[in-house]
């Protein structure tokens, strides 16, 4: 009778928890079982671990081996616990000293020949281990760069299970395959600078829309752009992250954790530029919001957390997908409920929608060239009506470009300058809302706005309400826009001109 143990860390969504692995070798016919709600890939770990240990010169016990993953009621998934399972079995069999594994987390997937492969989601796992006071962590060599992003932990990188045995005081006999450059999965990026978004100055004309996007970036407001095809809506939206306020440390870690979970940390690295996600309108509900069988995977809105979610051809999205966006837009997170449990993912993103004014695309301005029937136009926009449009703070018409030359360079600011102005406005807003913990004007509560906006400005809102140009929610949003405009001007509080602009940005001229 022999017992061995090891520690690992599991993930449900982005929430990590410690898994205590215990192995028990008992008399009986040979049988290797893993219990504790493993999923399919974790059950396959039996083959991998057994083969890897034998490839390291360890003779697998010809008797009953049971591995328990505690806590037994939480589902465990993925292949990152292979190494810890191997370590606990080796400890139970006496091939390594179990004392060496105390307070040590082991992570990694093992291959049949014993090599240790990289895993996804290392960043949130390490942050959790650090928080729980575990200082020593054994990780695959492929995750080495990602591990360096978290300080204060003693990270030991290994390439083979045999190295683990030798490190823990045992004898191993193994052959290490030569490291191939193209094979090594470098999960934290290959050292090159992450791709920068292109510059706003590359877009011809469209000064009004550029200014509107500047307002949106400064206050965190959601935007709807309508305009004919070819006006530049997509170009402008993709350049929005370049003018947004750079992410602070905590936000960078959040975004990096999500990317680590999705396995895209290598391509993006850790950067201060907010993420940009542009799902296609044929994307399924699960791809957009998150889902999948078992423990739900993050969707596009989570990958756009702290960044921009761009929905091009917004009326083409399925109504179901649009309706599921309502809740995350308000609350900033998405709850995916399954029979096995509910997974919460953060989803505080800035929504940018682009749409044609009508099905044929020419229904802008005086609508001369438009060939749509009124019924078609109404039906085209009906998907965007009501609750979704009410949550969009800014609605702007993007007119077609009339001239590609002749604009003075001075009127065409580059992204860097715009970003400076936006960051200043954001910092002012954050300072103002420090008590209430709101990050930007778009998160400000209605009560606060009504109390603190000047009488004269609020009077304008009342007039618009009376004339039914705004709903109550629209009034709140117009006030938020006014505050953002005041921030951009450097004013203490919005006056009448800012409020008028705020109301104008709010209502769609069509």
């Amino acid at each position, binding site marked *: 009778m022999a017992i061995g143990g090891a520690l690992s860390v599991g993930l449900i969504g982005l929430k990590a928890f410690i898994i205590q692995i215990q192995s028990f070798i008992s008399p009986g016919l*040979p049988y290797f079982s893993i219990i504790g709600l493993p999923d399919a890939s974790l059950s396959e770990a039996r083959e991998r671990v057994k083969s890897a240990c034998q490839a390291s010169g360890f003779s697998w016990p010809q008797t009953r081996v049971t591995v328990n993953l505690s806590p037994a009621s939480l589902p465990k998934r993925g292949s990152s616990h292979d190494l810890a399972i191997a370590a606990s079995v080796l400890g139970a069999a006496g091939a390594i000293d179990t004392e060496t594994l105390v307070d040590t987390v082991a992570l990694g997937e093992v291959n049949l020949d014993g090599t240790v492969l990289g895993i996804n989601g290392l960043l949130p796992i390490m942050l959790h281990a650090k928080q729980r006071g575990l200082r020593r962590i054994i990780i695959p060599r492929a995750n080495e760069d990602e591990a360096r992003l978290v300080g204060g932990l003693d990270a030991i990188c290994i390439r083979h299970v045999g190295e683990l045995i030798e490190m823990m005081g045992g004898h191993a006999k193994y052959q290490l395959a030569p490291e191939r450059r193209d094979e090594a999965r470098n999960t934290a990026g290959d050292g090159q600078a992450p791709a920068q978004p292109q510059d706003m100055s590359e877009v011809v004309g469209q000064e009004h829309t550029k200014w509107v996007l500047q307002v949106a970036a400064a206050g965190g407001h959601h935007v709807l752009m309508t305009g004919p095809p070819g006006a530049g809506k997509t170009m402008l939206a993709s350049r929005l992250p370049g003018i947004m306020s750079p992410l602070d440390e905590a936000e960078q870690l959040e975004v990096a954790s999500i990317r680590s979970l999705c396995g895209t940390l290598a391509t993006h690295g850790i950067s201060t530029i907010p993420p940009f996600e542009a799902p296609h309108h044929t994307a399924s509900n699960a791809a957009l919001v998150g889902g999948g069988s078992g423990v739900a995977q993050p969707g596009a809105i989570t990958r756009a957390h702290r960044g921009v979610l761009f929905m091009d051809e917004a009326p083409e999205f399925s109504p179901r997908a649009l309706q599921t966006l309502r809740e995350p837009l308000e609350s900033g997170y998405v709850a995916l409920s399954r029979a096995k449990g509910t997974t919460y993912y953060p989803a505080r993103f800035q929504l940018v929608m682009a749409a044609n004014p009508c099905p044929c695309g020419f229904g802008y301005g005086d609508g001369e060239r438009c060939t749509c029937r009124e019924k078609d136009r109404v039906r085209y926009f009906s998907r965007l009506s009501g609750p979704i449009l009410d949550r969009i703070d800014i609605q702007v018409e993007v007119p077609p470009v009339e001239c590609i030359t002749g604009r003075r360079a001075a009127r065409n600011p580059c992204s860097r300058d715009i970003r400076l102005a936006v960051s200043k406005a954001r910092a002012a807003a954050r300072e103002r809302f420090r008590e209430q913990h709101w990050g930007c004007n778009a998160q400000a509560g209605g009560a606060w706005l009504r109390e603190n906006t000047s009488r004269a400005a609020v009077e304008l809102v009342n007039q618009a309400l009376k004339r039914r140009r705004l709903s109550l929610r629209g009034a709140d949003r117009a006030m938020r826009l006014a505050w953002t405009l005041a921030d951009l001007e450097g004013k203490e509080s919005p006056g009448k001109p800012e409020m008028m602009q705020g109301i104008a940005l709010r209502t769609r001229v069509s």
Partner: protein
Amino acid sequence: MLDPNRTIVFVEVKTRRTTRYGSPQEAVTVRKRLRLRRAGVQWLLDPRHRITHNGVRFDVISILLDASGPTVNYIPEAF
């Protein structure tokens, strides 16, 4: 055989000269175990084998014959 507690023990002996096809114990697969149980039942039903007994047990003995001599592994209550 009958053990001191008057339990009938059926012992399956497996011998191997090499572990190239697995250890001797691994050769007692689930299917074989079912057949051994059924064979045991059949044996007990035979009127010549009527003995008072106190339960039934199945053991496995695995013998590995290699250069250094036979290695015997006894697994009581294997299934």
